[in-house]
């Protein structure tokens, strides 16, 4: 258990990353106040940083956006309440792509976050701040959020563990909505154990969220001796011919380890995988365009004065308050929902989604327990590299987005380095089988040297 002074010192050490949005002095003062009231519990004293799109009472919640700059939420997310009940201390808010829209944290209104090992590179996104802070050793765990891979992808880039739970496992009450049918709060952690313990603490039924399943909080499994009895599928669509050679090498090493640990490894196919990104980029923007309509300058946020009428109020608030990526997605989302296009786009995409979910069910129903894939197609790319072409940025999510569409859980663990840059390996499990996923993850973590050059 680290002292508050120690945490503050480590946060200071990571300051150049621009991962933490809250001033360190404010974090330290809050941690001290929180520690006075904090109960004993399974996370006793653990400092946990929180992505800026999750509502907290202790700090502002701005979602990386000017439109909520300085906003103090009058209520806190259920996940935050549960963290505190478990004894954890909330250690400030982390930087993210604006409203969680992005894969590099370059779309934050408060500057980009640097990759902890290479300042010229991105930490991934949208939960780049959380992943970077954990990777820098400032906190053992941080909450992020997933809509299309926004915890797993940055965790993979930064060389830490990232977990996305089953849709409905963790309450979304207090998570600022982006793509409602895709969003879940996820966890970045130094180790599988740290991340999983935090996940267990925040999971479970919540009457405030109608999409949260009526289940008990998730129980942590014990790490098994080996993987005897596990059948692990390797989906061919996730190992395309043009996969980064370094990533391929790291994954092949893992597959060998899986076999050595006693797992049966099988080739499988998820044939609709190529359509996952276009499907996602219809559904997520559509839901976002609706979820972001509430940012109108009427009830909270900044008000740009001197507007003559309500129309001008909306347009100046939203025009000035939203960045270009958010504006683009709202426009795409509005388009695909609009009269004449709804059937061809949004409705079609929700059907396509059923086919993608069916792919997973087909494989899991035929005796496969888990799937193993690369987490990302490449290691962390350079800042600015993908900012010109939105579609190029979208393709960074290619291996993560399917889990959000199907609602299944996924985890990334570090499986090596390529030219010094971390590579992540991903396990995907059927709905609500996080325990099997974690058993395999514990074992992999033990058996695969995560920081070795491959």
């Amino acid at each position, binding site marked *: 258990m680290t002292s508050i002074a120690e945490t503050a010192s480590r946060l200071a050490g990571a300051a150049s990353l621009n991962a933490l949005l809250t001033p360190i002095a404010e974090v330290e003062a809050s941690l001290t106040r929180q520690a006075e009231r904090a109960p004993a519990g399974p996370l006793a004293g653990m400092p946990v940083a929180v992505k800026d799109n999750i509502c907290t009472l202790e700090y502002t*919640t701005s979602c990386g956006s000017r439109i909520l700059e300085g906003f103090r939420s009058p209520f806190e997310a259920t996940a935050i309440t549960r963290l505190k009940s478990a004894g954890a201390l909330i250690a400030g808010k982390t930087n993210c792509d604006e409203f969680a829209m992005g894969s590099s944290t370059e779309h934050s209104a408060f500057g980009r976050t640097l990759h902890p090992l290479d300042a010229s590179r991105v930490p991934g996104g949208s939960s780049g701040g959380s992943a970077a802070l954990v990777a820098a050793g400032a906190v053992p765990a941080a909450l992020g959020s997933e809509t299309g891979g926004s915890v797993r992808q940055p965790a993979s880039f930064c060389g830490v563990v990232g977990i996305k739970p089953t849709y409905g496992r963790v309450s979304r*009450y207090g998570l600022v909505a982006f793509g409602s049918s895709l969003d879940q709060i996820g966890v970045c952690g130094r180790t599988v154990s740290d991340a999983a313990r935090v996940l267990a603490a925040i999971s479970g039924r919540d009457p405030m969220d109608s*999409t949260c399943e009526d289940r008990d909080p998730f129980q942590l499994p014990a790490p098994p001796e080996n993987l005897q009895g596990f059948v692990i599928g390797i989906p061919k669509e996730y190992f395309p011919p043009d996969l980064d050679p370094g990533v391929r090498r790291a994954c092949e090493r893992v597959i060998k380890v899986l076999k050595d640990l006693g797992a049966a490894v099988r080739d499988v196919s998820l044939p609709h995988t190529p359509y996952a990104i276009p499907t996602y980029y219809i559904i997520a923007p559509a839901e976002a365009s*609706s979820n972001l309509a*509430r940012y109108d300058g009427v009830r909270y946020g900044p008000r740009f004065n001197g507007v003559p009428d309500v129309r001008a109020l909306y347009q100046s608030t939203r025009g000035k308050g939203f960045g270009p990526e958010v504006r683009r997605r709202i426009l795409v989302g509005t388009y695909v929902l609009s009269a004449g296009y709804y059937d061809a786009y949004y409705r079609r995409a929700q059907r396509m989604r059923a086919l993608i979910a069916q792919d997973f069910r087909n494989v899991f129903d035929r005796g496969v327990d888990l799937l193993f894939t690369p987490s990302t197609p490449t290691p962390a790319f350079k800042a600015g590299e993908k900012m010109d072409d939105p579609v190029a940025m979208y393709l960074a999510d290619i291996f993560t987005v399917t889990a959000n569409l199907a609602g299944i859980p996924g985890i990334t663990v570090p499986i090596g380095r390529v030219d010094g840059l971390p590579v992540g390996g991903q396990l995907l499990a059927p709905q609500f089988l996080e325990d099997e996923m974690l058993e395999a993850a514990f074992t992999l973590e033990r058996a695969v040297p995560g920081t070795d050059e491959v």
Partner: protein
Amino acid sequence: MSWETVIGLETHVQLRTRSKMFCGCSTAFGAPPNTNVCPVCLGLPGALPTVNGFAIQLAVRAALALRCEVHLRSVFARKNYFYPDLPKGYQISQYEEPLATDGQLAYASPGRGAVSATIVRLHVEEDAGKSLHDRVPKSTAIDLNRSGVPLAEIVTGPDFRSPQEARAYLLALKEVLEYADISDCDMEKGSLRVDANVSVRQMGATALGTKTEVKNINSFAYVEKALTLERDRQIATLEAGGRIAQQTMLFDAKANAVRPQRSKEESKDYRYFPEPDLPPLVVPELWLAEERAALPELPAARRERFATHYGIPAQDAAVLVQSRTIADYFEATVAAGAEAKPAANWVMGEVLADAKDRAGTLRVTPERLARLIELVKDGTVSNPAAKQVFGAMAVNGHGDPRAVAERLGLIQVADAGALTGWVEEVIAGHPTEVARYRKGETKLLPFFVGQVMKVSKGKADPTRVPTLVKERLGG
């Protein structure tokens, strides 16, 4: 040129729940502004909706009362548009898969007699807040207390052929919804709101004319006014060779006119899609059965039954059935032993009058009323005396009718001796009239009866007196 008016109505009814549709805030009317609010109905970042089960039950009950097909599985949908009193920038409603469809409501059309309106759909949704203009100078003031209150939207087909018909339907709808205890349907308080679609066409034409939407109708009286104005405007336009623009018209009560709403160039595109924050709405079979069983006998059926079963004239039945409490009271009185016709008269008369003075409370129990009616029937008290007894019982809220009558000295005297005595007294006291009667002016009989009643201080049995007088006078 002969014109036919075609009107369809869209009614929004507030369901009488304690808490809002999607959050636990109070729905109580009249609270200070923005005090019945929470993250959900304020549309704060991170808030999520949860569904009020009782609101759904009431909506199911309304659907059954309107003889709709209730869809056990329906889906909430977002209706997206911007307005300052719509906190999320969308309203959670239902679109492609509503709770109920294909119902009907019978009502009495002033022009066409007994007709049925088709209920195309009934769905549930949340209310928006209130926008108050000029409460604060140069601003519009927003109060979100009403944001999230549960509404049922009830849509008819283009069924009404006159503004009067539209009003008659609305009154019938209000009656049914009040009867089934779904809403208090108070247009002044805003718990019942109506928008109308109006078009005209030449008599005999089958195609519908271009319709306009008429909004801002705030009372039942205004319904007729507004629709008449719009109908007349459309006819005048067409007769002058113009065309009807499809637009929204607002009724301005002060100016007694309808004006076009200043609207955007494009027609509204609400971009409906299924609400991702809410799983499908599945009505438990048990609720359907419970609500069906809980449905009271509805007004039309009850009027019918009162007429046939109790032999009461139609217009009396209509008065008795207007309020479920009064109708129940009437039936309880009959069940306690009173005959239907006198019971009906008493309820329509004394009971209703007393209730009106007492904000609707019925102070005399049906059993006591039945006993009172029995006393009149067997001659123990006269009708006028009985009314006094009723009044006394109402004031005290209790009392056995006979005992009260005795205490007030109102027990009718049918004793032959006493009666004869009073008759003699009157005859002795009015020799002129007696002489005239004996000469043939038999129309003086009521005069003598009246005098006997007077001298007996109302105690004489008025049914026996005339016979006695006649005998005595030898007529």
